[in-house]
């Protein structure tokens, strides 16, 4: 048993900047990630605002074509590598995983801290690329454009390469933590579904990210020495690059969405006060998604000139990966049945996720079908689709999780009223921006266009105006969250009536997480047996 003075927690246990920079506490590392992920999101969002502004009219408004290309490259690369891939696992996941399984820390705390510093180190490369003639390749770095353009591709690629290792080390840490650090009695099927989701995510991180690493390394050396594997001028094959790239980047989509689905499972049970419907189905579907996600990357290459056989296989398998996702959605809805639904801010984001992710999913079915994809590929339809899944899915879940665990992280409550207003702005703004882009895509508007035909202007202008509404929503959120840190009401240990282990310790938790190692003797969501 640990001896802890009353009022001590992981935040005030030790003081000073140095105590944070050298901390091995998973909670502090999670919070530091959170800070830098928020900064990255703001930066990526700023670029998005700028490039949408440029698209207000056809032709030049503020930026040249080259600057516009750099803007969308930076927006994509920052949002993917610095924000969304680490968003839920590295920040919320780091904070939460040991708490949810009743452990004192992750298995390798020093590795965890080095992951964080690798993240910072990679971020520095990306920022350097930004000031030293930003890359204009798009975040996909397709060859041979990326091997021939004169912008600073190498620093951006090296940045992504290093960020990849940060992600790999987080994945290794989580796998070992989940295998070896569970509290007594916490069998695999007593783990919260968030832990299952993080586990499935970690599997993908460990298996897919090395291939991205080698791909980016090959690209760097291609530029430096001309290895020629991806360069058609030297006898190489640009389609091979696309295979390499998407072998990581398609599973990476599930690195982004799986933890989000984990958050959803937590939110729906807690705010419906209901045991989850289909626990095993949800747990297994996470694993199924993780594995099948490796078999579908070729659906990014339907018109690229890959063989028709490959296209056929990839399309077929793409439909198989859609099923487990659909199963999860149905399970969440069934969970609400006969519950006691408390519509608080986190639950609002649950609803937002459900609404937006379904739209993203249905349009994904269109893109997965071969003949239809030929028409829609590389149009705004694709842009809208992945923003609905990534932003409408992952970001909404991230915000839901942030609001849900905020009291646990900081011991402070935020204003529910302000949260509702921000949510409203975000929902309206998001749909203004991106639903419009579905329409643009069906009309045949190609993506990554600096200028466009006059007839597309009304839709583009409407989409751009939506970005401002969206921005207002995020500004309100930033304001009330910071406000809560300063003047927020003290949070109780369990403000929402959650049953998982993190709610059984104080808010914020002590450095060692629990006074005594918890002993688990029940399933995670037995709301019918336990009354909170």
């Amino acid at each position: 048993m640990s001896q802890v003075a009353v009022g001590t927690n992981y935040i005030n246990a030790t003081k000073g900047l140095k105590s944070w920079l050298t901390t091995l506490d998973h909670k502090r590392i999670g919070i530091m990630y959170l800070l830098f992920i928020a900064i990255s999101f703001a930066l990526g969002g700023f670029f998005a605002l700028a490039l949408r502004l440029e698209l207000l009219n056809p032709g030049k408004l503020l930026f040249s074509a080259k600057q516009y290309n750099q803007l969308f490259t930076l927006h994509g690369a920052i949002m993917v590598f610095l924000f969304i891939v680490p968003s839920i696992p590295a920040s919320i996941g780091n904070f939460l995983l040991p708490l949810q399984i009743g452990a004192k820390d992750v298995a390798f705390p020093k590795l965890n801290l080095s992951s964080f510093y690798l993240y910072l180190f990679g971020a520095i490369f990306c920022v350097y690329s930004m000031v030293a003639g930003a890359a204009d390749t798009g975040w996909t770095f397709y060859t041979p454009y990326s091997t021939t353009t004169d912008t600073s591709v190498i620093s951006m690629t090296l940045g992504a390469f290093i960020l990849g290792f940060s992600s790999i080390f987080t994945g290794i840490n989580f796998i070992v933590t989940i295998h070896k650090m569970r509290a007594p009695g916490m069998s695999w099927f007593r783990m919260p579904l968030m832990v299952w989701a993080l586990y499935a995510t970690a599997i993908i991180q460990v298996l897919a990210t090395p291939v991205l690493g080698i791909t980016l390394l090959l690209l760097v050396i291609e530029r430096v020495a001309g290895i020629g594997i991806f360069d058609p001028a030297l006898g190489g094959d640009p389609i091979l690059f696309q295979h390499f790239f998407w072998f990581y980047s398609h599973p990476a989509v599930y690195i982004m969405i799986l933890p989000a689905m984990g958050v959803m499972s937590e939110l729906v049970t807690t705010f419906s006060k209901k045991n989850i419907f289909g626990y095993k189905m949800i747990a297994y579907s996470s694993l199924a998604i993780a594995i099948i996600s490796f078999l579908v990357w070729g659906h990014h290459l339907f018109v690229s000139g890959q063989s028709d056989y490959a296209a056929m296989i990839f399309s077929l398998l793409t439909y198989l990966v859609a099923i487990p996702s659909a199963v999860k959605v149905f399970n969440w809805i069934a969970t609400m049945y006969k519950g006691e639904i408390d519509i608080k801010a986190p639950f609002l984001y649950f609803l937002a996720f459900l609404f937006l992710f379904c739209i993203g999913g249905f349009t994904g079915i269109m893109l997965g079908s071969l003949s239809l994809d030929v028409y829609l590929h590389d149009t705004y339809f694709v842009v809208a689709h992945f923003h609905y899944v990534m932003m409408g899915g992952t970001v909404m879940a991230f915000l839901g999780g942030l609001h849900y665990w905020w009291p646990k992280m900081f011991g402070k409550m935020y204003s529910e009223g302000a949260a509702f207003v921000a949510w409203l702005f975000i929902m309206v703004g998001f749909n203004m921006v991106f639903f419009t882009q579905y329409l643009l895509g069906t009309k045949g508007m190609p993506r990554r266009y600096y200028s466009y035909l006059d007839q597309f202007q009304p839709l583009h202008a409407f989409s751009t105006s939506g970005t401002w509404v969206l921005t207002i929503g995020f500004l309100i959120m930033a304001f009330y969250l910071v406000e809560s840190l300063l003047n927020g009401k003290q949070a109780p240990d369990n403000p929402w009536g959650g049953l998982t282990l993190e709610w059984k310790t104080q808010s914020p938790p002590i450095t060692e997480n629990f006074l005594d190692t918890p002993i688990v003797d029940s399933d995670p969501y037995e709301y019918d047996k336990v009354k909170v």
Partner: protein
Amino acid sequence: MSAHSHLDGHHSHFIVPVRYYVGALISLLVLTVITVVVAQFNFGSFNLLIAMLVAVVKAGVVISIFMGLKWEKGFNRVAFLGSLVFLFIFFLFVFSDVLFRSYRSPLEATQINLKSPVKKLEPGSGHH
């Protein structure tokens, strides 16, 4: 309650007898010699097959004896062998594309009646 069997405090390591290691060393050295000798003869496309077979056997020896996977249990095995499965998937799907796309097909080139669009590398000139 298998989840917390690590809490029972028991800690002992299985020590592998030296003869395993010596045996592995000898077989690896012998296999290396075999693969080198075989490569001196031309068996056509079988050369690759033989070389790869020998390499796989050697890899098996290193993995099971030196790395001790033979005595390893449960997940460590699944993890490592699983990685090979995923690597195979990568290989298989990439080749499901390249093998069937008539890449640089001579037939196609004559149909279209065009020279290869690849620039020839001049001897001694280097590229770019």
